[in-house]
């Protein structure tokens, strides 16, 4: 069934060569660090998902349902903080990036393995601080921490801000490590034009991480100082300007959307090639559009501020620049579709997620162009239309790619095959559930329902009920995945070295790989995903 399956597997793998607890906690192996991050971000996803379910249940009825208004405010804040900083930003780069990037380049490890381990503990420390704030009294500011409310809110904003500040350093270290690894640790034959597109996506992401994250860190620290010492930088009473906070916040937080979505696009590119049995259509254009998005992403933060008193000219410029992102994204979408066209398509679960990804990205992207027009945005600003838009493009895309990566690399990481039929059911449930959850929210927003409101008029109830029903489907789908993946870890069929017959470079090592990835020095002799070159099964 699989042409290059069945090649020799290493007996000693990164999973079984040492099994003590300290061999995990003190490891410098990028693969173990990737696995640790995977566990951590999945826990974050679970936590954020629980918060989301509470929100959706509360919104089942127009009046109070299960929680008070104040708890509701805390819930949407904690949902946003958890999902954005604890899950989506590190999800793909820190978990899957750490695992496969060095293998794809034919390297033994990332450039700075000790720093890589430190990034895990910095993440844990930051997440711990954030959780401490959540348990202490939570925060009710929304994940955007807008001043002056965030400097005066009676809730525990300070530990949450500090937690996010600390997590930022974990992100910076990961980015720094990836860039240096790509520059210095490529195996023989790995020319710049052969670098897998997932690595290119991570490289573009890393640049944003290194450049933008410190700006966010500093602005959150300033809000913290403002709360604790009353420094007054964003306080109009002392001559400060609250809008300055918005500029500084979005200077990071807009590019942060691309920190989330670029690695997702990288995953999609790998999966499309593997399951269409074709090399990517337009390698250079996909790599270039990654950098186009990363670049333009730095100059479009003002589209979050069309109603903040920004000049009309400024808004117009930011609007046009934001629309450019759609062009670069469209280049990628056309190339993925062109790759599938005429390919020998094998509709396995990872590819199903790719189809979900393309649909959500297109829908979210086109509504993105709509909200980038200043006149329409004034109508939709701060309504559920925006909520639906960014959930489609940012959450939908990241989740689809995360799940695609999880299934595509599951055999690579753990040497087990997941049950295909159950996963097909889960994938269909999740894609359908996602659409049912957020499509009604577009309509709600267009009808004028503001985001972050506790109550709403009774005639909007049916759409809210629909949305909650979709969320329940999502919860069911995720539970299903959790059950069958945990089951497969123990009882799943052992995987072949290359169960998909993929020509991605990462499959040159065993599944699971040997402790130092390869048992002999790898050499790259063909383009990545070149299915025209017949190749005997091999694993170094």
């Amino acid at each position, binding site marked *: 069934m699989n042409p290059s399956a069945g090649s020799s597997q290493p007996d000693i793998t990164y999973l079984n060569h040492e099994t003590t607890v300290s061999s995990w906690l003190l490891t410098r192996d990028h693969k173990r660090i990737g696995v640790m991050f995977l566990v951590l971000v999945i826990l974050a996803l679970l936590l954020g998902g629980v918060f989301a379910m509470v929100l959706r249940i509360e919104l089942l009825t127009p009046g109070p349902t299960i929680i008070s208004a104040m708890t509701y405010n805390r819930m949407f804040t904690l949902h946003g903080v958890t999902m954005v900083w604890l899950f989506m930003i590190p999800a793909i780069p820190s978990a899957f990036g750490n695992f496969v990037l060095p293998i794809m380049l034919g390297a*033994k*490890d990332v*450039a*700075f*393995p000790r720093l890589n381990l430190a990034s895990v503990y910095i993440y844990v420390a930051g997440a711990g601080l954030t959780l401490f704030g959540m348990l202490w009294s939570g925060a009710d500011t929304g994940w955007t921490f807008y001043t002056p409310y965030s400097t005066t809110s009676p809730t525990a904003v300070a530990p949450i801000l500090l937690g996010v500040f600390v997590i930022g350093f974990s992100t*910076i270290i990961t*980015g*720094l*490590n990836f*860039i*240096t690894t790509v*520059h*210095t*640790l490529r*195996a023989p034959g790995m020319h710049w034009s052969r670098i897998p597109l997932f690595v290119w996506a991570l490289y573009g992401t890393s640049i944003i991480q*290194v*450049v*933008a*994250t*410190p*700006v966010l*860190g*500093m*602005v959150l620290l*300033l809000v913290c*100082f*403002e709360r604790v*010492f*009353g*420094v*007054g*930088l964003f*306080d109009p009473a*002392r*001559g*400060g*300007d609250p809008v*300055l906070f918005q500029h*500084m916040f979005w200077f990071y937080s807009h590019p942060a959307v691309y920190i989330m979505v670029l690695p997702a696009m990288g995953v999609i590119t790998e999966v499309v090639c593997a399951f269409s049995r074709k090399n990517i259509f337009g390698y250079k254009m996909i790599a270039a559009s990654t950098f186009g998005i990363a670049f333009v992403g730095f100059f479009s933060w003002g589209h979050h501020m069309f109603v903040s008193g920004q000049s009309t000219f400024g808004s117009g410029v930011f609007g046009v620049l934001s629309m450019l992102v759609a062009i670069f994204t469209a280049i990628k979408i056309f190339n993925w579709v062109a790759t599938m066209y005429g390919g020998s398509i094998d509709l396995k679960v990872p590819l199903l997620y790719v189809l979900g990804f393309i649909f959500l990205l297109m829908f979210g992207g086109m509504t993105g162009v709509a909200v980038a027009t200043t006149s329409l945005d004034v109508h939709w600003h701060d309504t559920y239309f925006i909520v639906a838009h960014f959930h489609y493009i940012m959450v939908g895309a990241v989740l689809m790619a995360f799940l695609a990566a999880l299934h595509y690399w599951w055999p690579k990481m753990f040497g087990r095959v997941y049950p295909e039929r159950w996963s097909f059911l889960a994938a269909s449930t999740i894609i359908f559930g996602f659409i049912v959850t957020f499509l009604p929210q577009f309509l709600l927003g267009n009808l004028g329902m503001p985001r972050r409101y506790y109550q709403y008029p009774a005639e909007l109830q049916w759409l809210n009920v629909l949305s909650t029903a979709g969320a329940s489907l999502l919860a069911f789908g995720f539970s299903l995945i959790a059950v069958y993946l945990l089951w497969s870890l123990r009882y799943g069929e052992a995987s072949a070295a290359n169960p998909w017959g993929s020509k991605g470079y990462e499959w040159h090592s065993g599944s699971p790989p040997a402790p130092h990835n390869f*048992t*002999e*020095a790898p050499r790259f002799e063909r383009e990545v995903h070149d299915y025209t070159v017949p190749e005997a099964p091999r694993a170094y």
Partner: protein
Amino acid sequence: MPTETSPWEEHFGSRENQSKAAQLGMWLFLGSEVLLFTNLFVGYGVYRYYYPEVFVEASKHLAAGWATVQTLLLVTSSLFVALAVHYIRQGRQFLTALVLLVAMGMGVGFLGIKGWEYWKHWTEGALPGEYYRLEDLPVQGGSLFFTLYFLLTGLHAVHMLVALGLLGWLVWGAVSGKYTAEYHIPVEVGGLYWHLVDVFWLFIYPLLYLVE
């Protein structure tokens, strides 16, 4: 089929490559450090545009003469750090440690002057935000100037402390013979960090002390 040894057995393959990786990593880190200060510089630009006269008046409360001494100390210390890199490339470990110690002494002198200046502001009431007690300047603008002053110089001082720790570690390494003419990457990248901290001061000094 493991092979005995190959250049790939070493994590970096070669010393040159390791040096290249360490330098690239440090440059990227320095880039992110620059962005860390950017918010404060942007904030300075915005509020100086809002309150030009107050900023000029507030600047007169600072000891510009002593800041010039500080600047000279830091620039000279950078020269000594550059000498340290020069000497360790020739394998002269004792001389390396010596010039690094001189640079550290200058850094400590810088922080001493800074501390004295802070103490003066404390007694005068030229403090950030709600602790601001200066009466000859309007609160709007005046408190912002001193907020930015303390944030910029404070963040710089924290970086100075880290850089001093780094140089101390390098001195210890040089004395114990860890660094040689062949292996001296830590001295090079540690030196880079020291230079960056100096460069920050070269921007902070005119912006805060030389306002006309």
